[in-house]
């Protein structure tokens, strides 16, 4: 009896394990990406015992949104693309060729990858006066506020978390990035880093308020801050409904990502990359890409708020992937526009940028709220 008892016990364990796995599998497979092109392949794979769990996980919508597109992988791809594109476009405007020697046949697009690998194998110098633990930690910690907003951004039905508070959560997470940069500058403990940190702090207050008001205007206009609903309500794109809010968003985005007219905190020629002056190797690579990552998140947010998110002409046989691709393309286009600015403008002085932020932009942001209020109160939203 005892023997059979243990075996029964074993059997129940196995059954329970199987039910647990099956429940998880049920959760995954009930909410899977439906992509007609690869459907036959998926169907075949789903019959293979172990592989099916993996396939289910990858195609599980929240996982897909966070780890693939528009999440981590999309972020990395867009980084590689935008750094290359920025250099190439600037070079074209400046009568040059841009990066070309690495992978010459495809226009040197592998150059950022090569640079990244060089960063990886470069020595990381930590100077004597630096606060060592913080100095090393902060560039890595900076990824948390950069990556978390992706959880809340919907690409059609592909999203990780849907909540009516998505917009405030994203804005507050994005606002955390400058805090990390200031911490980086403080840990560097150098004169130029100190000046850069102070500049970053000033800029932070300069752009954050108009930015939040401009986003608020859109929440007022749509009457919700659930991004999924906002996308659904946009039969006409938000940029047409409230162009002033879009303008304020774009300019504050340039300020927030320290693009060129407002590249004040980093100011290469003045304070030698400001807060990041002491970094080298992969840590410098991380800090350098921080602004681009922020730009990607803000580009996604801009697409969702003003460009109809994942909406667009349906692509045949892509099913659930269609809105993902449209959202991604829109975000990358916004990044390209930001990259273009670099070839056009010099850098403003800190007082001029602050004046712009506190007067013109804040004023315009308030106007955009009024417009949004009128539109939503008048029931003009189609």
């Amino acid at each position: 009896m005892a023997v059979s008892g243990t075996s029964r016990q074993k059997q129940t364990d196995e059954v329970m394990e199987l039910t647990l796995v099956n429940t998880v599998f049920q959760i995954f497979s009930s909410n899977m990406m439906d992509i007609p092109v690869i459907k036959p392949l998926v169907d075949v794979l789903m019959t293979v015992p172990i592989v099916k769990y993996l396939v289910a996980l990858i195609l599980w919508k929240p996982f897909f949104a966070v780890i693939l597109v528009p999440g981590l992988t999309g972020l990395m791809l867009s980084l590689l693309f935008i750094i290359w594109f920025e250099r190439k476009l600037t070079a074209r405007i400046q009568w040059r060729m841009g990066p070309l020697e690495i992978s010459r046949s495809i226009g040197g697009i592998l150059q950022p990858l090569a640079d990244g690998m060089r960063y990886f194998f470069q020595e990381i110098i930590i100077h004597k006066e630096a606060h060592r633990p913080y100095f090393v930690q902060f560039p890595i910690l900076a990824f948390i506020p950069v990556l978390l907003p992706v959880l809340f951004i919907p690409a059609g039905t592909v999203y990780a978390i849907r909540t009516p508070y998505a917009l405030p959560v994203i804005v507050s997470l994005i606002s955390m990035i400058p805090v990390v940069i200031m911490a980086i500058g403080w840990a560097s403990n150098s004169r130029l880093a100190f000046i850069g940190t102070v500049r970053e702090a000033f800029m932070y207050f300069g752009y954050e308020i108009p930015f939040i008001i401009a986003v608020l205007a859109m929440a007022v206009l749509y009457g919700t801050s659930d991004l999924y609903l906002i996308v659904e309500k946009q039969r006409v794109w938000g940029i047409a409904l409230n162009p002033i809010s879009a303008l304020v968003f774009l300019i504050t985005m340039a300020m927030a990502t320290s693009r060129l007219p407002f590249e004040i905190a980093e100011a290469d020629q003045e304070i030698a990359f400001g807060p990041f002056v002491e970094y080298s190797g992969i840590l410098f690579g991380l800090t350098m890409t921080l602004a681009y990552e922020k730009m990607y998140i803000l580009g996604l947010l801009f697409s969702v708020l003003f460009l109809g998110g994942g909406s667009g002409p349906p692509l045949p046989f892509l099913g659930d992937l269609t809105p993902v691709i449209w959202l991604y393309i829109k975000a990358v286009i916004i990044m390209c526009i930001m990259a273009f600015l670099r070839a056009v403008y010099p850098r403003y002085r800190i007082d001029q940028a602050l004046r712009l932020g506190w007067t013109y932009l804040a004023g315009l942001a308030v106007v955009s709220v009024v417009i949004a209020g009128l539109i939503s109160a008048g029931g003009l939203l189609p």
Partner: protein
Amino acid sequence: MREEYLDIPVEPPAEFQPLFVPIPREYVENAFRSDEFIVLVGPQHPGSGHMRIVVRIKGDIIVDALPEPGYVHRSMEKLAENRLYIQNIPLFERPSIMDSSNYNVGYVRAIEDALDIEVPERARYIRTIFCELSRIGTHLYDAGIFSVFLGHTTGFMWPFGLRELICEANLRATGTRVTTSFIVPGGVRADVDDSVLKFIYDSMGVIEKRMKGFEKIFIKNPAVIARLKDVGVLTKEEAIRYGVVGPFLRASGVAYDVRKVEGYDAYDELEWEVPVGDDGDAYTRFLVRVEEISQSIKIIRQAIKNIPRGPILSDDLIGKLKEKDQVRKNIKGYFYRIFSRIRLPQGEFTSQTEAGRGLLLYSIVSDGESNVPYRVRMVTPGWLYLKGFMESLKGSRLADLQAIYGSFGYFPPEADR
């Protein structure tokens, strides 16, 4: 306002002790007590050039700026003392990259003055053309550096691209792009072909055309104007008191140009105007130089149109050489025989030249016996306006340091010699 002092023992940072910073300990302590901050800009700094500026700031405002030049000192004057007069030509064109012709003309004119050499007319015109090419090149170079100091990379690349035309003109005429060593006592080294003159004439049109694009993207760009207007102002009185020279003096409202005053080379025979500004701020200093580019283009066009035919080397130097006719066209084969004999009479001979960045002074002292100069004094424009540059920094913001630096086109190798 009452000055507040914190009476606590101050320990200046360690970096002020071992780095041979030429500021006294008291200065650092004083700055720390009065809640000011000392920033060392340079020599390893993207916006300092080959020099260090010790900037004392209060908040964001520059209270005091101490220059520390000399990082690229090459002791040109001493080197010149054991070289033949002719061997100094490649030496003296090296302080300033693009300005080689102007630097040669100054030195050569002092020698010609001493030996009473009459320069043939064609040589004078060729010299004028090359001096003005140098001037355009220098101004374009400075505009490029200026732009990149403001963070405007397109404004950096375009003038440098245009400068390539100047280099190409130099290349076709003299065989080298920058350090031409083309102007020698008594004339120039070789005649310039008509096709090369045509190329120079045409390239002036290209520069004029492409400068329009540069004007739109940089000169008239509202962001640039915002950065430069009313920044680093030097009034007329200050500019005179601090001994500022060249376009920067003219930007403060003083109409003084050595080319007009001395009328050397062919400048007296050509029609051109002196750009003079009123405000004396960074933007005016830049605009004056932009206007000088168009005036130089005007000079070059006239000079090419009116250039006479004739020899390019003075008969005073050729002497009784048998192959006179050949040497008058091209000095090849006779260089050493003609120029090694140059020996200046006893005395001191001075020449003033308007180089790209302002007044350039050469003073040669000769003992009358040796074939090398006893002493050569060379005062470059950069050295002359360094004081004005430092004074105009005071009261502006730290971010304006680079804007003012670029607006003066300060070039440490030129100032340090």
